[in-house]
C-alpha cells in the first residue's frame, strides 16, 4: 500500500501539510510521489462534538496523530479503535487520510 504525498526533489524531505516550498531546504521543486503508507500512532482522541455538519451525526469519532515511517506527522481519522504506539496503514479516502491498524 502506498500513499501519495509531496516530496522535495532536492533534499528528499516528505512534506505535510502540503507546501509551496520545502520546509527543510526551501526548494520549490516539490512533486507528488508514492511514499510508505505505514506509520505509528503518537496520540489520539475521541471527539464528541464536531463543528462540521458532515460529522455532526458521526460522533464520537477517533482522530489520531501519526508519525509516518517516511518522517512526516499527519492527522488522520481512525477506522476502529486505536491506541498510542499502534502500527497503522494510511489511505486517502474521499480526500481524507484514514488510519487502520495493521
Amino acid at each position, binding site marked *: 500500500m502506498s500513499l501519495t504525498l509531496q516530496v522535495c526533489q532536492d533534499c528528499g524531505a516528505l512534506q*505535510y*501539510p*502540503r507546501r509551496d516550498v520545502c*520546509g*527543510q531546504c526551501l526548494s520549490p521543486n516539490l512533486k507528488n510521489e508514492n511514499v510508505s503508507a505505514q506509520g505509528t500512532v*503518537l*496520540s*489520539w*482522541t*475521541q*471527539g*464528541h*462534538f*464536531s*463543528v*462540521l455538519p*458532515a*460529522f455532526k451525526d*458521526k*460522533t464520537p*469519532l477517533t*482522530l*489520531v*496523530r501519526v*508519525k509516518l515511517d517516511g518522517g512526516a*506527522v*499527519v*492527522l*488522520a*481519522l481512525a477506522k476502529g479503535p486505536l491506541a*498510542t504506539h499502534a502500527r497503522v496503514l494510511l489511505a486517502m479516502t474521499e*480526500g*481524507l*487520510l484514514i488510519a487502520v491498524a495493521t
Partner: protein
Amino acid sequence: MPQPYEGVALVCPVTVPYEKRSDKPAAWWIGRALKALIDAAGLEKTDIDGFAATSFTLSPDTSVGLIEHYGLTPRYLEWIPTGGASGVMAIKRAARAVQAGDADIVACIAGDTNNAESFQGILENFSRFSTQAVLPYGGLGPNGVFAMIMRQYMEAFGATRDDIGRLAVMQRANGATNPLALLTSQITLDDYMNARPIAEPVHLLDCVMPCAGADGLLVISIDRAKSLGLPWVQIDGAIERHNAYAGSEQILKTGHMMDAGSLWEQAGAAPSEMDFLQTYDDYPVISMMQMEALGFCPFGDAKTFVAQTDMTLTGMLPHNTSGGQLAMGQAGAAGGYLGLVEAMRQLLHQPLGPQIAGATKGCVMGYGMVNYDRGLCSSAAVLSRGGTP
C-alpha cells in the same frame, strides 16, 4: 543577552468587561479599551503616537483599519497576530520603540467579539495548514489537537486527569474572587472528573468559554510615567520563540524551554523568587507544560509540583490569580493579554480581587497559535513593581 528594558514603564492595565456573546464587532471592543487607556492615563487621544493591536475577528482589517476608525495618527504601528503569545510580544516591541525614540506612548490592545458567526469564522479560517489538514478531520476544533497533546503528556509522564484537575480547581478558586470573571463558581476535583467528555481526555472543565472582550495597557518611558503621575511596572526580562523544535514529532516542550536560561539570566532572578505566575491556560495541561518549560519544576514533573504547591491567592506560588481564561472566559486573542494585565495589577497593587501580599516580582507567559498540530508561538516576561511618582 539582549539589551535591558531600562527606562521603560508599563502603565494602566485595562479590561473591557467580558461578555459571553456580543453583537458588537471587534473594533468596538478594542475602541473601548483605547478610550479606557486614554482616560486612565489622563491623556488626549492625540498623545497616542504608537499603536499595537491583536485580534482574531477583525478581518479584513488589521491595526491599519483601526487607526482610521479611531482617528489615530501614530508614528509607530504594530499588528501582532499571535493570539496567546501576543501580550508579551507587544510589550517587548513597544518597549524597544520607546527606548529608541520611535514612539512616546504606545497603546497595546487585544480584543475580540464572540458570536456564532465569529466563532465559526475563527475555526474555519485559522490557518492554511489547519483548514487543509486539521479541520476536515472531524471538525473537532482546537479541542481535538489539544486533546492529543494532553494524552501524549499523560502517557509520557504518567500523569492522570486528577493530577491535571487539581490545577483547574485552584484556578477556579482564584476566579471566584474576580468581579470580572464570567464563571465565578468554584469547582471540586469531583466536578472536574465528572465533567462531560469533549475530545477525550479533554473534558468540559479543561476548556475555556469563548466570550467577547478586550484588554490593554500603555508602554511609555519611566520619565513620562512620573510626569503623568502614574505608578508603573518594569520589564526585567522577556523572551519569545516561534516554531520551536521544528520538524520534531515532540509536542510536550513549549518554546519557552529554548530560552528559559536567557530569561532568568536577563531578569537576574530564579523561578523560586517569583511572587506569582500567570501562564496561558487554554487547558490546564498546557499551563503545566509551561511551568516545566521555564523551570518552575522539572520537565515531566508538574503533577508533583501542582500537588505539592498551593497556587491559590494566599499560597506559595499564586497561579493565574484572576482565575485566568478558565474563569474569565477566552475573549479570543485578548486571552494573550489576560495574564499580562493581571500581573500588572498585582504589581501595581491595584487588583481586581484580593491582592497577593507583598507582590513585587512575577512571571507572565504566553503560548498559542495552533497552526497545525501544536502551539507555535511562545513568549514570557519577568515583571517587577516599578515606582510611584
